[in-house]
């Protein structure tokens, strides 16, 4: 038992001395993960839209050629950045640019470099997720939009993407949580994230394990809070399960209305919500 007491004492010692380093590390990690995920999602959405522009047999040959070229470029981008470790991508970008240009082109701030690497990495993953999200929306939605004269871009922005976004929210959440953890590799270019705080503290205190414990608890707390918030956002996006009848005439027929117990079945993770609704209804 005294080992745990020892650990607690060491952690207290670390925390009183280095808590500013840990806290600013947490702050930097969260900012980097958040900004990287948001920009990554934008890249993913742009790639997803470009990838799903319909090609019709009687299109202009130039349009066909450009679309084909765009798809090839996106394909290469996705394969390269999804297929190599982010830590090496950071090294390539941060040290490779000055190497090739004799210091003419280089990142002057590790923040810019880190955000660029995390964003394009997330974008490569999101490109495929967005494509999947778009494909998973019922084709009838596209036809409905086209039938009232919407262009491809209007169909996408008004009808398909809002639904695709809802479908891929779990994936975006996944990516954010992965980014919270994986930004720890950015110490390689000297980014002052939460893990860099660990390296700095143990360098001075030699308390490897207690500091690692602080890190573990810190990362888990961040990801748990993120999970919780993402679920909350998803629920908000689903909107209310009920609606108000706009009734000027009290005799308006109400046949055919019913309360929808949400899209999920009673057996999925939202079953609690379902039960509550059933109870409410009684």
């Amino acid at each position, binding site marked *: 038992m005294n080992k745990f007491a020892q650990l607690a004492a060491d952690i207290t010692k670390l925390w009183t001395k280095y808590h500013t380093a840990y806290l600013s590390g947490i702050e930097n990690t969260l900012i980097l993960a958040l900004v990287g995920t948001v920009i990554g999602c934008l890249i993913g959405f742009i790639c997803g839209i470009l990838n799903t522009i319909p090609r*019709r*047999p*009687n299109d*202009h040959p130039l349009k066909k050629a450009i679309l084909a070229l765009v798809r090839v470029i996106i394909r290469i981008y996705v394969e390269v950045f999804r297929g190599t470790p982010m830590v090496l991508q950071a090294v390539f970008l941060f040290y490779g640019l000055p190497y090739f240009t004799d210091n003419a082109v280089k990142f002057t701030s590790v923040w810019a470099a880190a955000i660029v690497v995390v964003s394009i990495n997330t974008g490569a993953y999101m490109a495929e997720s967005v494509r999947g999200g778009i494909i998973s929306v*019922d084709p*009838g*939605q596209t*036809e*409905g*939009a*086209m*039938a*009232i*004269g*919407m*262009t491809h871009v*209007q169909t996408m922005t*008004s*009808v398909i993407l*809002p*639904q695709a976004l*809802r479908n891929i929210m779990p994936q975006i959440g996944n990516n954010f949580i992965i980014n919270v953890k994986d930004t720890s590799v950015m110490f390689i270019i000297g980014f002052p994230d939460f893990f860099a705080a660990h390296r700095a503290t143990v360098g001075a205190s030699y308390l490897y394990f207690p500091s690692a414990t602080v890190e573990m608890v810190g990362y888990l707390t961040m990801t748990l809070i993120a999970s919780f918030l993402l679920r909350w956002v998803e629920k908000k996006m689903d*909107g209310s399960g009920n*609606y*108000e*009848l*706009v*009734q*000027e005439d009290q005799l*308006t*027929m*109400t046949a*055919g*209305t*019913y*309360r*929808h117990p949400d*899209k999920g079945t009673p057996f999925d993770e939202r079953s609690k919500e379902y039960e509550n609704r059933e109870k409410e209804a009684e």
Partner: protein
Amino acid sequence: MQDLILQINHLSKSFGSHEVLKDIDFTVSHGDVISIIGASGSGKSTLLRCVNLLETPTSGEILYHGKNVLQRGTNPAEYRAHVGMVFQSFNLFNNMTVLENCMVGQIKVLKRDKTEAREHAMHYLEKVGMTPYINARPRQISGGQKQRVAIARAMAMDPEVLLFDEPTSALDPEMVGEVLTVMKDLAESGMTMLVVTHEMAFARDVSRRVVYMNGGVICEQGSPEEIFGNPRKQETIDFLSRFRG
């Protein structure tokens, strides 16, 4: 002489080696209410989808006020704004309320301002009896109600022609009536309609011209009295006898 809206010449459509439509000639004039009947797989829906360019015909031409819309350089979106479509599976936008469904096209495509679009949408929603449900989402209303909203959505665009692709086929029997009533009202108000349907009573009592399709060709067409009272072709007689029982 009625003014011609659509003229379809020698239209053919193949999916791979399977020829679904063979050399179809067909016209739609202002005020026409045309029912297209025929067995499943006879090409009726494909014809309708070709007219709205949801399918690209293999050959032939579709003249809209004399201008071929299949020509390179014509904007399909612009053409579709004039030709409304009501689908078998409703295709209401799931991410919008009933009212938003009827407004979005007016705002994005016709560039109407919000108040005008709202007034216009409410006008047609009232016609189909859906004003109480303007805040509901498609998943919360019944099939018949969805189809009535879909009709209001198409009408709000002030189309010249309205195409119906088996509008009652996905509905429970007790909901078919409410949709047909709305369609009958539309027909009586002078709307130009092209209806693919299995509802023989509608074809007989509401439409002014009936087209019988069989095997990708127009087998016979004429007034409802001619087709239902005195069909000339043996295929038409066989097809109709299945509905009389």
